[in-house]
């Protein structure tokens, strides 16, 4: 009943509800992270000094996490490719891998935070660490959100009724779009905090 409007090409945008909704949500996310990056730039240019990432943070762990997140982006797009071919087992395998990699990202992040806390470094230590903890923390919350979505898709993949639903593939695609966006944010966060 709700999708009857799909039958009217003259009054339908041509992008499915789910995909358009996810893209609009990503638009708001773009504005959110644009604000955070703006704050970072304004504060950094206003600061009298700004540490070099290699001196202040654990760059090897950061690089490892970058590789993990990029890999998870590939595994989720593979899961989409498997779902596209209605390959149930392949989808579960790649989606499971994606979830493993996302947990690995969080574990590595935990080690990193632990190392900093052990050195007595907190968000209040300096403006640099305030930016570091806030930006990576908010990114981490987005990872957690992605884990919730992806694991619910994995759970759904065990029920046949969802594979019969034509909207299931759209959901997998939407979850993928979100996950790639989180990846892109990290692609910019990593050099901004660790390297430059």
């Amino acid at each position, binding site marked *: 009943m709700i999708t009857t409007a799909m039958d009217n090409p003259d009054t339908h945008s041509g992008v499915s509800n789910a995909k358009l909704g996810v893209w*609009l949500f990503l*638009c708001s996310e773009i504005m959110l992270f644009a604000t955070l990056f703006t*704050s970072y730039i304004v504060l950094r240019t206003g600061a009298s000094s700004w540490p070099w990432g290699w001196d202040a943070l654990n760059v090897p762990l950061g690089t490892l996490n970058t590789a993990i997140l990029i890999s998870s982006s590939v595994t989720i797009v593979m899961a989409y490719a498997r779902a596209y071919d209605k390959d149930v087992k392949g989808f579960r395998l790649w989606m499971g891998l994606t979830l493993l990699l996302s947990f690995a990202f969080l574990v590595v992040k935990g080690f990193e935070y632990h190392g900093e806390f052990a050195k007595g470094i907190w968000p209040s230590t300096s*403006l640099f660490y305030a930016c570091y903890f806030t930006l990576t923390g908010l990114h981490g919350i987005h990872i957690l959100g992605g884990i919730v979505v992806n694991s619910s898709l994995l759970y759904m993949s065990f029920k046949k009724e969802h594979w019969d639903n034509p909207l299931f593939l759209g959901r997998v695609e939407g979850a993928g779009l979100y996950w790639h966006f989180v990846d892109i944010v990290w692609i910019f966060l990593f050099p901004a905090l660790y390297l430059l």
Partner: protein
Amino acid sequence: MSGDSNGHGAHEPSFWRKYVFSVDHKVIGLQYMMTAMSFLMVGFALMLLMRWQLAWPGAPIPFFGRLFPPDLAPNGVMSGEFYNSLGAMHGTIMVFLGVVPLAVGAYGNYLLPLQIGAPDMAFPRLNMASYWLFLGGGLLMLSSFMMPGGAAQSGWTSYPPLSIINPGQTVWLFSMVLIITSSLLGSINFLVTAMNMRAPGMSLWRLPVFCWAQMVTSVLLLLAFPPLEAAAFLQVMDRVFHTSFYMPKGLVVLGHVSTVSGGGQPLLWEHLFWFLAHPEVYVLVLPPMGIVAEIIANNTRKPLHGYKTIVVSMISIGVMSFLVWAHHMFISGMSPALSNFFLVTTMIISVPSVAILTCLIFSLKGGSIRFTTPMLYALAFLPLFGIGGLTGLPLGLTVTDIYLHDTYYVIGHFHFVVVTGSILALLGGTYHWFPKWFGRKMNDTLGKVHFWGSVVCMIGVFGPMFPMGLAGASRRLYDPTAQVHNLIVQPLNVVSTVFAYGLFLFQLPFIWNFFHSMFRGEKTEENPWHATTLEWACPSPPPHGNFDKTPRVHRGPYEYSAPGRKTDYWMQTDPA
């Protein structure tokens, strides 16, 4: 998400499913309406308390003064901290919990799917989540009065460093995050619905003005709210984890040098806050403009003058509203070069606003006007909103703003826009669409009493603020008599307060009328106003799923008094 079985036309849902945890856009719209109107009353009540202190500073508040705990109002006299809390919460509640949810959550939710001929929103469950997040955020905001440290005291704008030093701000920030998330979900839903769910034949240029207003508003909410969400996170970090995003180095608080690491910039918050809050002003104004356009077209019995001009103006207001935010910051110490930029954009954005108002006024020309209750509100909107808009021009010019910025002039300007503009239109919309919501009409006599009383009192409350501001009365004082130059205009404060209490009294007939008519009002048929748009082509109130069969749209939204026809209205659904 979409397309799940939501029980359309299936078995009768339980009471909880039907009225409380409903996914029907009409029920959610009415939930939004009741909640937002209650919040409007709460915000209004806070202001009535503040008006007492402003008119008779230091006098104990009658009747209610003793009810407050002694640390807020010792011996019934309002304390300065309490006054600050009331001010901050009045602004926050009115804007974020009152007018926006009423204009967008209530009217948009109920009418947008009906006007485009859709059975429901694109994501019904997201719609429900949006309402419950809003309610949670609103209740959390209200509960902050009872929390240790009290409610926020730093104005609805929450400027740091004050907002980081003052108690009570953390709860404000968390409830704002809930409210913002609710708005984001709502606006995504509105946009997808409007892009994908229109009935066959409903091309974009056949959409009623109200739908256009809701679409532009949704874009504003979608793109302007996230910056405030991010900025609020940073302020939470400053308050909870003692970072210094907004705290400069060496700040002296009560004689002590602050111990934060420093290096932050308070102006950054102002930029991010106003990047939201200026589009927010247009969120307050555009849907009411849409409502006024619908009422005027219906009651002049002729097509709107310049439908396309109005729509294009609304879109350009939407675009420009993102580029004018720092005209709120002319005296903040911002770069003078940027001030010039924002001065120019501010002058430009007034052009489309005037264009819309002009089109609406020209729509009256040559019409056979029916002076129904909703039409009275729409007619009053035109000049009063005009006053609100025109008094804004001196505030958009840097030179005059420097003098006027901290005075009551600003309060007068803003409230003329939002109260005699937005709220008046929203009240008119209630009388207009009430028959659709409940299948009954509101009482006309009580409606006219409500109208005339409210309009006179609103002008009485806010009119005196212009001379007060021009005389230099500061808008930030707990005790206006503390400055000698204010004494000469102090009687105007009394006038304003008396009219505020009058305004309260004149809302009582409305409240009675609303609830009484809901059950006892005169019954009406499908289309009591002989209107043309799609929401009048389904039963009143519309059943679950709205239309028996998907309507077909054949023409534009305002085909009134078409020559050669028996009736003076030609519905969008009429085949010929």
